[in-house]
């Protein structure tokens, strides 16, 4: 027998009150733990997600944040177009030499399949894009869990662009195309404008590599077929002509890369109603440089590339550069402000729970006066009575906090799929942190402090008044 066993027995005898108080503490602690988990995981995942994206070059329209969100996080829509000229400068043109390019990979966006974005790109996405370096210092490329990547390299893209430019040039200023040239179904109405695709998309372009999450959610595997859809919920256009076979499934990265479908950029730009060429003036010559893309993923060897890029694109009218690490850090700061408010609310819930501990114990003090008087008569000092009550408060709080943290992890396990689907954040439900240990310690201390007031009340019981009838 000791003070702790007395406190424990007191809690057990008031099991309903103790249980309810424990639950209220558990809710508060669980809320704090859940917020910490979400915030930490979100920040970590967001930081992981921009690995490999030193810079993103995109249209001048729209904000840098929107560009990063679209290109890196698969959120929102492309804000405009970037002429291929910019891409070529970065890939192997004057800027590439000056900046020491590692890779400059084009992206064309705007279509979806079952809600997942289609990204038209080149096979450098699989062969050059790197999510950092492994322990041996080797670049971490995107790996395939199943099948193989399609082949469509930079040179093929350039040839495609030149062909497309010639086709459009011919349709505008050269040999005029007859209207029937564009009436494939023979109904007397052209199926597309001159310059848009006229021929069926070659089968070697109609191939797709899907991200791990896409494969998991849609049950896709090698041999499956995707049919892109153009547009938003208000306007949708099914691209039957671009139905593509799944030839590969990417290994999971835990980043938004898992939630996209990658197709050859030639296929993307050849789809019906996709305006591959953008002419700033109808009087200009049409060249491959006029091919329109959505963004360029860029990484350089040269550490000074960042300042050169910034200077280069500061005054250009055809493109802007966005820095994913800066934009996402800003975004996290914005989210962080909201998170701070939520944190305050969560701590308020803990404070209310602590008040609950205080009130619950305080209310029992009247009925416990005789019990306390007996213990005092047996030699218990005020400090020992105070200790017993504070121990009870601390025990309830410690148990509540532990249950709250455990409940948080159970919830994280239960809802990890929903969270992943809605936020692209993969919750690591099994990871316990030191913060959580400190949360339990903190709540225990706060709960113990909440027990001081009732403890003082209990310890000041007049012993002689409660020992029994006087003679």
């Amino acid at each position: 027998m000791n003070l702790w066993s007395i406190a424990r027995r007191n809690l057990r005898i008031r099991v309903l009150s103790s249980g309810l108080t424990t639950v209220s503490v558990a809710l508060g602690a669980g809320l704090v733990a859940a917020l910490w988990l979400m915030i930490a995981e979100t920040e970590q995942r967001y930081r992981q997600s921009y690995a490999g994206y030193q810079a993103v070059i995109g249209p001048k329209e729209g904000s840098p944040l929107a560009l990063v969100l679209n290109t890196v996080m698969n959120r929102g829509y492309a804000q405009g177009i970037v002429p291929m000229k910019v891409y070529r400068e970065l890939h192997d043109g004057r800027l590439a030499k000056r900046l020491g390019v590692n890779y400059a990979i084009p992206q064309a966006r705007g279509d979806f399949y079952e809600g997942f974005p289609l990204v038209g790109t080149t096979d450098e996405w699989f062969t050059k894009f790197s999510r950092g370096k492994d322990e041996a210092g080797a670049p971490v490329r995107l790996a395939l869990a199943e099948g193989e990547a399609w082949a469509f390299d930079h040179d093929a893209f350039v040839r495609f662009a030149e062909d497309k430019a010639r086709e459009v040039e011919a349709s505008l200023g050269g040999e005029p195309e007859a209207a029937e040239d564009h009436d494939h179904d023979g109904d007397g109405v052209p199926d597309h404008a001159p310059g848009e695709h006229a021929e069926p998309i070659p089968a070697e372009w109609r191939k797709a590599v899907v991200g791990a999450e896409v494969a998991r959610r849609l049950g896709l595997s090698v041999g499956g077929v995707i049919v892109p859809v153009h547009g938003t919920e208000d306007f949708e256009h099914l691209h039957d002509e671009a139905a593509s076979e799944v030839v590969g499934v990417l290994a999971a990265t835990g980043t938004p890369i898992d939630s996209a479908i990658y197709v050859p950029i030639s296929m993307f730009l050849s789809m019906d109603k996709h305006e591959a060429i953008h002419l700033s003036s109808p009087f200009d010559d049409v060249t491959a440089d006029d091919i329109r893309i959505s963004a360029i993923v860029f990484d350089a060897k040269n550490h000074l590339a960042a300042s050169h890029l910034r200077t280069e694109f500061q005054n250009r009218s055809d493109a802007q550069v966005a820095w994913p690490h800066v934009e996402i850090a800003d975004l996290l700061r914005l989210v962080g402000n909201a998170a701070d408010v939520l944190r305050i609310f969560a701590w308020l819930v803990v404070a209310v729970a602590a008040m609950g501990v205080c009130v619950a114990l305080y209310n029992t003090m009247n009925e416990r006066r005789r019990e306390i008087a007996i213990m005092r008569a047996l030699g218990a000092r005020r400090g020992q009575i105070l200790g017993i009550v504070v121990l009870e408060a601390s025990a309830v709080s410690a148990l509540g906090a532990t249950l709250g943290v455990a409940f948080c992890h159970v919830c994280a396990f239960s809802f990890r799929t929903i969270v992943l689907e809605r936020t692209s954040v993969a919750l690591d439900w099994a990871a316990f942190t030191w913060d959580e240990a400190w949360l339990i310690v903190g709540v225990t201390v706060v709960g113990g402090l909440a027990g001081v007031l009732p403890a003082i009340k209990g310890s000041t019981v007049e012993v002689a008044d409660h020992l029994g009838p006087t003679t």
Partner: protein
Amino acid sequence: MIEIQNLRKDYQLGGRSVLACSVRELRIGSGEQVALMGRSGCGKTTLLHVIAGIVRPTGGVVRVAGTDLAPLGESARDRFRGRHIGLVFQTFNLLQPFTALENVLLGAVFTGQADGSHRQRALELLDRVGLADRADHRPSELSIGQQQRVAICRALIHEPELILADEPLGNQDPETGAKVLRMLLDIAGDEGRTVVMVTHDPGSAALMQRTVRLEDLREVAA
């Protein structure tokens, strides 16, 4: 064991000082078994509480086991009581959440010296009062007589020099009450402990070595 001189205990009631107990002189030797009698309201329980250090005297000297309690602070008196005094109450005052064995052990917990040997002694005491097989029972599962025997064991567990009993027979029938009292006196006698018992019952008082009437000890009120 107990030396009292010119003891006064006043209570403040409604702004007035009310004399609760007054003792000119009382001496009780070590190992004595003394009955304290007197009419209702004469201050017997107050005197017991003063001797136990539960209340502080307003004036006078109260020396118990060689320690003058009057100048001691509350915490020191609590500590003294926990180590040197065992209490038996009229209403037994067992704690309901605890078993008979745990109630007995509670008598040692607050001494700060409780160890494994106390558990052994608690079991021996329960055995001696015939409750060895009821050690795991809660007070509500015991008869009145059994509860009082547990209370006696609790008063003895920490081997106090002095046992103070306030109407320890409670509402028991005289036969059972006398039996329980004999148990207390036997154990106390065997272990050489002093017993002071407040009682109204002449039959119980007759079992003690000496009877003191509080009226005979009264100092003339100031």
